[in-house]
């Protein structure tokens, strides 16, 4: 071992580097009872140089608060939550027609309902039908949420944030559209209050506008599910024995298996699909 301290003295940093696991993790392992909520062993962090990236061959952008939060929350969630994806295709011709009609009705008000607004509304209604999907795991028990507080992922410069439409099941499409627009705009200006982006019960992430067909998001703890919405596009589908063209959108539900089992996730998606394929169901 060579010392990196003054005059070549071996210092703690050298010893820590030489050890496979960090001292904190070891201390926690040695005294499991005294360190109840001790986090899993932090990853040993190698420098870029150690991993073969030459110094000076890149610009280093320092981590700001949002980047650190995203990194920590996503790492914790992906590592600690046993998650699985369920994908389903949804025909949306009727939905597109309904949306055009709705927007026609709303023309005077200036409000414009997007497919994503309808998706959020449909999620909220489907969650009321399958309440097991509107749940959070905690060591004390499963929290069955009373309302569908739908968090919508909004990309903002340098990261993303998930403002929340509260009690979306009680709100009409016009109201959801108005709130979503306002939240997204204020999210981009970094003007959201903490209570506006903390504490949703279910998330919707939409990358359809980028042409993404399917993807599986990482769960936004403590929510039991997150829905990833792909692009609506014309695809050949088989109807009876005919191949016809339909507008199809694929969505993927990522589930926390501790609280949402496969069958529950599937029931949620079935309810959700039914509603988008026949939008009138949302109001019955």
């Amino acid at each position: 071992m060579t010392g990196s301290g003054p005059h070549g003295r071996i210092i703690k940093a050298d010893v820590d580097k030489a050890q496979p696991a960090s001292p904190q993790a070891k201390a926690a392992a040695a005294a499991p009872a005294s360190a109840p909520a001790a986090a899993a062993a932090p990853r040993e962090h190698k420098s870029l140089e150690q991993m073969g990236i030459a110094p000076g061959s890149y610009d280093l952008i320092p981590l700001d608060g949002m980047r650190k939060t995203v990194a920590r929350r996503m790492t914790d969630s992906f590592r600690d939550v046993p998650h699985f994806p369920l994908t389903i295709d949804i025909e949306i011709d009727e939905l597109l027609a309904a949306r055009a009609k709705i927007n026609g009705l709303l023309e005077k008000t200036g409000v414009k309902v997007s497919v994503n607004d309808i998706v959020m509304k449909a999620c909220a209604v489907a969650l009321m039908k399958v309440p097991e999907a509107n749940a959070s795991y905690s060591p004390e028990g499963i929290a069955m949420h009373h309302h569908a507080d739908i968090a919508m992922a909004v990309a903002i410069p340098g990261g993303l944030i998930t403002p929340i439409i509260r009690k979306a099941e009680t709100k009409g499409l016009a109201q959801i559209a108005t709130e979503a627009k306002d939240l997204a705009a204020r999210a981009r200006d970094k003007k959201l209050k903490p209570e506006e982006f903390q504490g949703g019960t279910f998330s919707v992430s939409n990358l359809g506008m980028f042409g993404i067909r399917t993807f599986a998001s990482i769960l936004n703890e403590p929510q039991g599910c997150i829905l990833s919405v792909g692009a609506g596009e014309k695809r050949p589908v088989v109807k009876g024995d005919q191949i016809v063209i339909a507008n199809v959108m694929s969505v993927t539900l990522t589930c926390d298996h501790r609280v949402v089992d496969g069958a529950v996730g599937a029931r949620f998606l079935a309810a959700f699909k039914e509603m988008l394929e026949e939008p009138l169901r949302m109001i019955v």
Partner: protein
Amino acid sequence: MADAFDVIVIGSGPGGYVTAIRASQLGLRTAIVERSELGGICLNWGCIPTKALLKSGEVYEQLDHLKDYGLAVEKKAFDFDAVVKRSRKVAAQLNSGVAFLMKKHKIEVVEGFAKLEKGSPAPTVVVGDRKLTAKHVIVATGARARTIPAIGLEPDGERIWTYREALVPKAAPKTLVVIGSGAIGMEFASFYRALGSEVTVVEMMPRILPVEDEEVSKAAHKSFEKRGIRFRVPASVKKLSKTAKGVALEIEAAGKAETLEADVCIVAVGIVGNVEDMGLEALGVKIDRTHIVTDSHGGTGVPGLYAIGDVAGPPWLAHKASHEGVHCVEHIAGLKPTNLTSPIPGCTYTTPQVASVGLTEAQAKEQGLDPKVGRFPFRVNGKAIAAGETDGFIKTVFDGRTGALIGAHMIGHEVTEMVQGFAIAMTLEATEAELQATVFPHPTMSEAMHESALDAYGKALHI
């Protein structure tokens, strides 16, 4: 190319001027830009003038205890103008000291407000109609008092003060409310109380001096109360307004609404970084809650642009600013900085004083460290008894597994002069064994440091 430098430092506080000196020592052609006074907040409106005021207050308060020492004065009194004047004189002396140091190190002092424009290899510094270029630009523009105008927390130059106004008052207020019990709030509370003001401190967090170890916070609370300072903790501030003769502060404490009336209110609710109007956003500098985001050498991600000191984030302390600046400029000069972790001590110069370094006991537990904790009160320390300064104690926190000293927390007379001992120990990665094996001189209050390290392992001698 008269205006081409190796390094330009913006701001001449303890971050900026020390960085400039070190740059010059390393043979770099250096300029420093300052919009107001050399020495920054620290020398002119912070660390130094407050310590001058506090000394006056401390001496004056001591007069109440003369009898304990077998002494007496006829009548105690103070000349408030002279107290403030002394504080300004001390600040002025140090301010001209910085001017001398700049000259001595051949650092060009540019007066004016610096702005930044795109440039290569580093952004161009624009001061008035001068354009200065350099290979490296270091932003050390510091910070200022946070205000919250929406609820009236905004200085009015008369009855609502920030530290600025509180340093140069015309008279001591009869009654004073201080919002915020951090170091700055508590130091002003301590000073004005010493000169006889009736002082109430309002704190939002569950305890005063909230960053300190809980035991120290509690002991400080008791000592201050004994001196007649009143507290509302925790309390949320609803609104501050001016009345015919003073101010009215609406708060909510323990679920009850209350209005505190006073002649003057000092707002000490934190600080915000000086990041505005300099063109930082246009350069793509990352700013997180009014502070510039930097890497471990002060780099901002924009080529050639660095930030250090208060503007680069907490802890907001002068010695942290200087330390970061030296590290940054040594890195720029291609020196390999040491690999040592240098813990940053924090001091509060109230009566009694509070000083600490490293982790609190609670933080050590949060990190799963299973700490070993030692305590020793000045009550049984010979020098403290002889000096009549028996208030307070020293608490040490060791890593139970390795014995490394990971934190020290002290409250009492002149503890701010002692905490460096623990800082050195931590920089040297000392364990309880080195501290226990060190011979401390007798009689000194520092013997309590030794005893505290012994106590953590059940070996204290005098208790």
